[in-house]
């Protein structure tokens, strides 16, 4: 019996939604939102179903689909999920479902906005479920490119007064405007995808140029030199998207300029795409290269953690704080992967999920605060807790998760990463990672205190708490954060089946 093509359903349902929105819902803003909610809802339900139905005993790729596209070149439409992508598909559907509600109030060209958003999500789902490297790359580009329009058209410009040694360059490049942010993000990510494409072709050619299938390539053991260089290419290419230092600066500008749902999706899911690429293709296809270059990955990850946290502390714009916190937390993801231990890798994948939800929550909240207060200047705010207690609570939960407080998902991820770090070949990684959690505590609580605590700020009047559909996003994300923090086994179980397989190729069974 052929199983129903549930992965295709998950992947293409938003795309169908985008088409419907473009062709049937013109000038019906409510219909646009309903179509978006329904089609992403279908994806969400289907991804919950596969999450439950995934056979944890059997492990490996399940819900397999294959349809040859270009047989002579070995390109086929080949889908399947394992423990890692399972969780990330769930993450994506949760975030986009919340994102649809978080951008409910968008006013300008909402039809095109939702259509692009849904197209982008199709790309993201596609990346996570596809097992064919060529199709993978197509989906990858599909996930990256709509971002340019989404930020360039619906973004918001911040104000940055250029100072310092390159001030003229800042004026020249228009730093701070949404156009600048959109262009920077797109150029960076395309820069990265050039490396990825080269890497994919290098693998294809070195494996005998007969198949792009991940499953086939997994069986090939490449020469050490190929492993090293292609791994490096993947690391840089995907690493750009994962925000590795010093290629991370697109992310603060991009996230700060992007509209709420786009920030949520981008920081929550797209950055995971990079980390997922490194784990799946870097570690999965090039075990030798991974073992050889783990030191580089881990060290840069440590820089990310501490540097990101310190940069976040220095920001005065709320969105920048959150964006830099992503840079810091992606360091945890990369560090976990670099440990090449079971616990570390579990922590890495779990952190992808935890950070996705957490940062999605953060951006949703920042969006709400911005919408109500029309300001992102932390220094001006104060005492919002009294007028928006719901938002304050959700922000606190998100903040606690990001500083790794137990009973939130962030703790599990960080703990596992720490354990992995100390068991890896580079024990000293533990210390910057732990220091990062302290610095996170400093900046998160500082920001929370400044915004929500203290006497009410004189700059704002008539603020109110979240309303209606906005609650859906907040409650959903907070609940996921806490549930996965209290019962991590739900996620770690499937992750573990995948990571042990992955590791057995790197360090031997």
């Amino acid at each position, binding site marked *: 019996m052929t199983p129903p093509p549930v992965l295709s359903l998950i992947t293409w349902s938003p795309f169908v939604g985008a088409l419907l929105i473009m062709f049937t819902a013109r000038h019906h803003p409510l219909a646009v939102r309903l179509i978006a909610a329904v089609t992403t809802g279908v994806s969400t339900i289907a991804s919950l179903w596969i999450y439950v139905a995934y056979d944890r005993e059997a492990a490996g790729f399940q819900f397999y689909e294959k349809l040859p596209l270009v047989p002579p070149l070995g390109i086929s439409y080949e889908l399947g999920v394992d423990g890692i992508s399972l969780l990330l598909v769930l993450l994506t559907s949760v975030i986009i479902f919340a994102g649809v509600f978080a951008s409910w109030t968008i006013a300008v060209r909402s039809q095109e906005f939702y259509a692009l958003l849904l197209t982008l999500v199709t790309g993201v789902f596609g990346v996570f479920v596809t097992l064919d490297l060529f199709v993978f790359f197509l989906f990858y580009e599909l996930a990256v490119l709509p971002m340019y329009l989404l930020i360039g058209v619906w973004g918001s410009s911040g104000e940055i007064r250029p100072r310092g040694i*390159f001030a003229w360059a800042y004026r020249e490049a228009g*730093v701070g405007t949404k156009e600048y942010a959109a262009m920077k993000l797109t150029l960076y990510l395309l820069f990265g995808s050039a490396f990825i494409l080269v890497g994919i072709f290098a693998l294809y050619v070195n494996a005998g140029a007969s198949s792009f299938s991940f499953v086939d390539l997994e069986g090939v053991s490449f020469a050490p030199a190929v492993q090293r260089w292609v791994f490096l290419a993947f690391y840089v290419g995907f690493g750009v998207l994962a925000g590795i230092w010093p290629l991370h600066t697109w992310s603060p500008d991009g996230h700060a300029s992007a509209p709420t749902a786009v920030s949520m999706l981008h920081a929550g899911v797209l950055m995971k795409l990079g980390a997922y690429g490194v784990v799946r293709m870097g570690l999965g296809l090039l075990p030798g290269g991974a073992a050889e270059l783990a030191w580089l990955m881990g060290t840069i990850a440590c820089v990310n953690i501490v540097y990101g946290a310190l940069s976040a502390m*220095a920001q005065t714009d709320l969105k920048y704080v959150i964006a830099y916190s992503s840079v810091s937390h992606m360091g945890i993801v990369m560090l976990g992967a670099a440990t090449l231990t079971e616990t570390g890798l579990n922590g890495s994948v779990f952190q992808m999920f935890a950070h996705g939800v957490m940062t999605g929550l953060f951006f949703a909240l920042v969006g709400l605060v911005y919408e109500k207060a029309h300001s992102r200047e932390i220094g001006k705010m104060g005492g919002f807790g009294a007028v928006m207690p719901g938002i304050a609570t959700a922000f606190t939960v998100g903040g606690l998760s990001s500083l790794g407080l137990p009973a939130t998902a962030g703790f599990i991820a960080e703990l596992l990463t720490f354990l992995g770090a100390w068991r890896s070949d580079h024990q000293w990684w533990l210390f910057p990672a732990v220091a990062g959690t302290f610095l996170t505590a400093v900046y998160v609580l500082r920001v929370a205190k400044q915004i929500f*605590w203290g006497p009410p700020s004189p700059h704002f009047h008539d603020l109110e708490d979240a309303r209606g559909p906005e609650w859906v996003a907040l409650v959903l994300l907070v609940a996921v954060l806490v549930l996965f923090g209290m019962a991590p086994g739900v996620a770690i179980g499937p992750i573990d089946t995948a990571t*042990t397989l992955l590791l057995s190729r790197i360090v031997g069974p």
Partner: protein
Amino acid sequence: MPTAVPHGVGLDPAATNMALLVVLLPFVAFVLLAVVVPLRRRGQAAGAVSIAAIAVAFLAALFSWFVWKGDAHVQTWAWIPADEGPTATVGVLLDPLSNAMLVLVTLVSLLVQIYSLAYLRDERAPSLGRYYTYQSLFAFSMLGLVLSPSFIQMFVFWELVGLCSYLLIGYWYERPSAARAAVKAFWITKLGDLGFVIGIVMLWAATGTFEFHALFALAQEHALAIEGLGTIMLLIYLGAVGKSAQFPLHVWLPDAMEGPAPVSALIHAATMVTAGVFMVTRAQPLFVLVPDVLVLIGWVGAFTALLAATLACVESDIKRVLAYSTVSQLGYMMAAVGAGAPDAGFLHLLTHGLFKALLFLGAGAVIHAVGTNDIFRMGGLFRAMPQTGVVFIVGTLALAGLPPLAGFFSKEAVLAGVWDSGMTWPFLMLALTVLLTAFYMFRVVFLTFFGRVPATGHPHEPSWTMRGPLWVLAALTVLVGIRLAAGSVGGRHGPGWLAPLSVAAALGGIALAWAAYQRGAVDPGRLAATFPLSVIDVLARRRYGLDGLYAGLYRGFILGLSRLIGWIDRYLVDGVLNFVSASTLRGGDLLRRIQSGHAQDYVYGVAFGVLLLLVWSQWWAR
């Protein structure tokens, strides 16, 4: 030595289920209050739910205390799965140590929650609901900590109680000082927790387990000869330094008094701050493997006791005096644990929990009545509030260590334990602290309840919901004292001269306080100005510069570094990028001028190209 460590591992489902009931009841209350918004908004109703839960939990704890007194029961469930057995487990460990703590925590929580109903009567209903939500969460977390069968679970709840402390200190979040104190408490304890987490990570990497019974078994078989065990235990101890406010991380506790008085009584006197002592006691079999660390713990404890006592002597805020007193008493407990007498330390923990809660609640009643924290603006309150006065004096006498109250016996045991272990200097510091303790506490008593009556205000006795808990605690202080005097518990007495010495020291302190603040025979200002005291006085008034040091480190180091990194990121890392981008734009602009639009200029270009080709083909292409 009757240690507070499980002798063996048993499994009686009834026992562990009872313990689970105790810990889950407040959790259910918390979830109810957190999720059912209308209930929380009702304030008093929320309080009723929370109190009912903790009351049943208290009865269950009492039941378990009487039924499963002597033995240890463990049950665990997998929490974080991994390929070969779970990485981490959760569960309950019910043994005498945790059982005693269960009773203490549920009892004090119950009393404090009842007390709060009246104390916070004027709060808005949603705020009160929020308060009881936090209280339930705290009760759950503290009970979970107490019942932890593994380091990892202990750490989880350790952080959660820290969170509750943060939330409750910041309960009046509109006050900037409360907001500051809350984050300060969180950060400073977090600093210690870094050591804790690193320690348990290292321990796990070396042994592959977090569970106490497995680790203790290894320790008993002398199989725990890990390289760097000393470092690991020191790091774990750091967690206790932060949580139990040991020098030099004690600075957060006095500031934590920004929270409501009942919160201080519960969290910052009776329960959470003793978690550090509890943890070191719990992990005693591991600490005994590293005697150097134990000695350090003892020294730090004794020093903390003395230091905090001197700080308490110059403080004028009644709650802060009590806070320093708590720090000082925590130092006692730690000194006892460090001296290898964890039973004495734990006994002191229990008795101190009772009378310090009493003192804080009493102080709360006073503050509630007069509307200020400053002891110099109080006076003669004994006449207006005789009941409060009596129970406060009972608590003070217990803290000062006078027989037959509970504090006397536990303090005695601590001093004996330290003397027996041969740590002379720490013993002397602790003995001096006895005198100081009596002095500063009676300074508060005389200034508050006796002496001049200030002109303002009409203080009166609080309502019965506040008085009830006070009387219960006072009675317990006395009863436990009598029970201890009967001599069946805490069998550590030390040399014969010890009891007279400590009583004499306490009486001396009381006399000094009486002379200075009641009788006026000694001018406290002049006393403080005489030579050796004047130095301490000046330093203590500046809090030994520690608060300033932390503030400086925070502003100068962390914020400074962040500003530097922020600058580097924006103007160097991103700057180079923008430089490249702007240079490209500029370069393009420059090259654009070559495109003059005159066809003939292009022909020149072609001609030069031809020339280049010719030259190249003739001179280089051979």
